[in-house]
């Protein structure tokens, strides 16, 4: 059989893998199978400019639709995969069609964690994951309407910012004691809570929602203490779950995601897993984990393609991420989990500052708020495993560039 790569999942990771395979000179068949109607597209603008109506749909696409045919990539849209048959080396679609592979890439991504409460299936309750989600939501995002957001993570807060800009009344409910509690420090949480409040959003933390109420469409969020919050629509942003079921069904090893090595290979040498669904080595941190980011999707797409064509593995970048809310650009380099010391450089009151995270004296991550120098320096310093100290970054009389040079020279 001639070489054929089947990619399950036509998101940012799957799309990148297909593009990179051709860029790296792969000449066999490529099948890119996605369950959505659109060709691969960027998700980050969905909760930002696209929701705001500032970006037309085609500009979200990673490549124009005709790109795939022009490059002999067979794009299967609206196509769901029923199962992977490892003995036959084939992927069986729900339509009954079967695609043979010599190499298989699983890029099935993730799905929103469902709200486990009564009323979650009412009308005007929305997820924020796909183009279709946003297209359904957009007509309801009208000035004056009352929006209830469940979950104060990045997605929820980005949507809150857009909603305020569009003139909706916004209430954000968060179970934890502070916003962004799962992903960042109290300094950042305090900053973002104040930012949203200054723009007129109501942020309520330490809140337990018990149900959504309404007949047909949602009309109220009901709290555990009985309080009812009236609303016209609800957005749920309480995290995502890896789509690993196809892999599990095929007997591929999984543990909070599909387990892969640095080349993105699973325990079946002909099967790769990339993007949100992959549980990967985090080489800068000596552990493994799942990353939910564009950086990860693109990087692993390239790595899988490189491995398939026998090319050297592209360098693994320090994990990075960004979030735009109002006029604030947050850029994150590295992973802050496990930090035991925090240094704030700059003043949150000026809306330009950076929070540096250290664990056992070792620099591991930065949250840079309108502070690109701190972000880019941090990326380089972590990549080089440089000995940056808390005292270095605390000295605001020295430029970040000079601090970086000193630390890199140690």
């Amino acid at each position, binding site marked *: 059989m001639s070489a054929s790569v089947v990619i399950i999942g036509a998101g940012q990771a799957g799309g990148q893998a297909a*593009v990179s395979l051709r*860029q790296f000179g792969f000449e066999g068949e490529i099948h890119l199978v996605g369950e959505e109607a659109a060709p691969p597209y*960027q998700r*980050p*603008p969905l909760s930002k400019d696209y929701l705001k109506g500032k970006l037309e749909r085609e*500009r979200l696409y*990673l*490549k*124009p639709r005709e*790109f795939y045919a022009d*490059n002999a990539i067979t794009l299967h849209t609206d196509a769901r995969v029923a199962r992977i048959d490892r003995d036959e080396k084939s992927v069986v679609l729900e339509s009954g069609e079967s695609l043979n592979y010599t190499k298989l890439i699983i890029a099935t991504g993730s799905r929103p964690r469902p709200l486990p409460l009564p009323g979650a299936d009412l009308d005007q309750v929305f997820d924020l994951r796909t183009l279709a989600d946003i297209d359904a939501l957009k007509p309801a995002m009208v000035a004056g309407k009352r929006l209830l957001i469940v979950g104060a993570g990045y997605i929820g807060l980005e949507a809150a910012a857009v909603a305020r800009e569009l003139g909706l009344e916004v209430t954000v409910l968060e179970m934890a004691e502070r916003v962004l509690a799962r992903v960042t420090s109290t300094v950042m949480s305090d900053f973002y809570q104040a930012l949203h409040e200054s723009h007129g959003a109501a942020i309520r933390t330490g809140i337990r929602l018990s149900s959504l109420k309404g007949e047909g469409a949602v009309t109220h969020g009901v709290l555990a203490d009985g309080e009812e919050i009236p609303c016209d629509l609800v957005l749920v942003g309480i995290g995502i779950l890896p789509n690993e079921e196809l892999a599990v069904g095929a007997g591929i090893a999984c543990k909070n995601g599909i387990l892969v090595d640095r080349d993105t290979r699973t325990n079946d040498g002909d099967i790769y897993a990339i993007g949100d669904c992959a549980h990967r080595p985090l080489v800068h941190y000596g552990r493994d984990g799942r990353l939910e980011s*564009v*950086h990860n999707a*693109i990087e692993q797409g390239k790595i899988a393609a490189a491995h398939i064509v026998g090319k050297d593995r592209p*360098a693994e*970048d320090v994990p*990075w991420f*960004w979030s*735009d809310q109002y006029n604030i*650009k947050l*850029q994150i380099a590295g992973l802050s989990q496990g930090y035991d010391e925090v240094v704030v450089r700059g003043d949150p009151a000026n809306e330009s500052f950076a929070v540096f995270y250290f664990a056992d004296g070792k620099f591991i991550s930065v949250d840079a708020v*309108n502070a*690109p*120098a701190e972000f*880019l*320096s941090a990326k*380089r310093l972590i990549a080089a495993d440089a000995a940056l100290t808390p005292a270095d970054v605390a000295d605001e009389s020295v430029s970040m*560039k000079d601090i970086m040079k000193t630390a890199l020279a140690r």
Partner: protein
Amino acid sequence: MVKITYIDHEGTRRDVDAKVGESVMEAAVRNNIPGIDADCGGACACATCHVYVDPEYLPKTGEQEAMEQSMLDFADAVQDNSRLSCQISVSDDLEGLVVTTPESQH
């Protein structure tokens, strides 16, 4: 349509028809121009769409905002005519624009 020429670091020229209103980065990605990664999709968050602008056209590409300047300050092999191509909006004034991509976007 506005004609833009991208020259890679080995000197290969590629012409594309860019649309007014899209960015010089988007025109490149849409036309599969190598050497422009644009990982963040144009959010000015990653500095992987660095280009050198033909000096003749530089004044027509608009002013750099503070965010772009800071990002470029940390890019490799920056020159006076460096720009992030996601921050250059295509207009009729840019007809014939020539940009060169650096050897690496890191």
